[in-house]
């Protein structure tokens, strides 16, 4: 799928699962390529078919399968909402930042760490409602980003006045308390 000759950013990658961000303008090309190359198009578990609502013009995800490998394609970086079964795109500033630069690892293009950090924090709080150990390890590995102005600016577009509190809790390693703390936040 990476050979489809379209611009992409890998979000996560393992032997049997790829999650990537592509541009919406390339959606038709991707589907055409998938068809020609024998990929199976599968209904994504998070889809309108399965009762989810995609807000603010978020394009539905595509899920492809070939030889037991799943390829999940987003067209904007998504975030779950606290509103049940409601998915929205992250702020436009974050979407733009995802495409402005990329990080190369083994000749594959990934999100820059600043954007990936925002995506991971949003996923941990709104989708998982907890911080899994793999996520905590990654966040700690890239903890230098937490003081980056560009990153903080993007994070504030998701967490608003909770941003500083969130950064404090992360730096204090209080990951287990974050979700409940967020729900109870009232300083706004």
């Amino acid at each position, binding site marked *: 799928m990476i050979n489809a000759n379209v611009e992409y950013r890998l979000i996560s990658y393992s032997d049997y699962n790829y999650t990537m961000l592509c541009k919406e303008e390339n959606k038709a090309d991707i589907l055409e390529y998938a068809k020609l190359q024998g990929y199976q198009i599968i209904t994504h578990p998070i889809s309108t078919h399965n009762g989810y609502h995609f807000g603010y013009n978020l394009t539905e995800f595509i899920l492809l399968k070939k030889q037991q490998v799943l390829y999940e394609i987003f067209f904007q970086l998504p975030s779950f909402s606290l509103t049940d079964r409601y998915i929205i795109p*992250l702020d436009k500033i974050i979407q733009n930042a995802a495409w402005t630069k990329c990080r190369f690892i083994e000749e594959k293009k990934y999100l820059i760490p600043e954007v990936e950090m925002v995506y991971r924090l949003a996923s941990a709080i*709104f989708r998982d409602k907890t911080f899994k150990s793999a996520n905590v390890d990654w966040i700690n590995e890239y903890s230098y980003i937490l003081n980056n102005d560009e990153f903080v600016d993007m994070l504030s577009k*998701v967490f608003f006045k*909770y941003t500083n509190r969130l950064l404090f809790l992360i730096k204090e390693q209080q990951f287990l308390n974050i979700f409940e703390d967020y729900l109870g936040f009232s300083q706004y």
Partner: protein
Amino acid sequence: MSNPGVIKLASEKIYNHNVWLDDNIGESIHLHIDDWRFDFSINSFEIFTRELTNVINNLVSLEDFDVNKWDIRFVHQLSPYIKYISKINKEECYLSKLNVLNDNGIMINLTECSRVKALQGTININDTKNRASNWINETNESRLTNCLEYIKEHGYEMSDNCITVVGRNNLIIDGWHRASCLYYLNGDIKLPVKKIYFKEDFVPLDEFHFPGFKIPQNSKVILYGAGKIGQMYYNQIKKTNYCKVVAWVDACYNSIKPIDDYSIEDPKVIPTKDFDYVIIAIGNMIIKNKVHSFLTNLGINSKTIII
């Protein structure tokens, strides 16, 4: 772009306007009225709600009325009718004389309601629809259990928080669970209740609900009155299948179009019908009494006339 941390706090249609309230965590509270949006900080929203409480108190022209002393869920239920309150009296009443709106929306006697039956162990309360007035994470069972434990420990609070009823039929509008627990623990005792009276030109709340407690289920009924109340009763019956409507009559039958499969007929046909009860679905008490006289003059047994 929207805040992912959005929790819908409330949603209601008020006089044909869509009104809803969102908490956008970290950002602000949004009050939406159709295409308008009002943003509040937490503090300003608290001030706003305090001011609204003052408005409610001012709508009721009773000296010692204070909505802060009422259960907020009950205030919400009563809100469309608050301005019609004329007096609130404390009166004594036997529990068996109280009625409730059962889970299917039909008015039935307290002693036959689902909460009493659940306490007696004859039904599982969680099989009934979860009450919209339950708190978050509160089930019907936990609400009833907590109420029972509270009553066992504290007894019946006879101050401002006593059971509240409305109308000729003593419809409980606040205190169903307490009344059920008290009946379960003590039987048919007499106790003080708060009774709300409405201004004369307002049709009492209990009149909007089919009086199921007055007739056995599966009775054959004739509805007298095809106006607002008659149509409400009909819709409740249709939704619940509590009884069977065998005919529908109205004095103005000539000018009323058929409703569903029912042609609205001349009341004079009533003696020709096979029925168990005639339900007078009219709000105005004077007219209701006149209809009652009319029916008895037609030869209808007054025991079969539900007024």
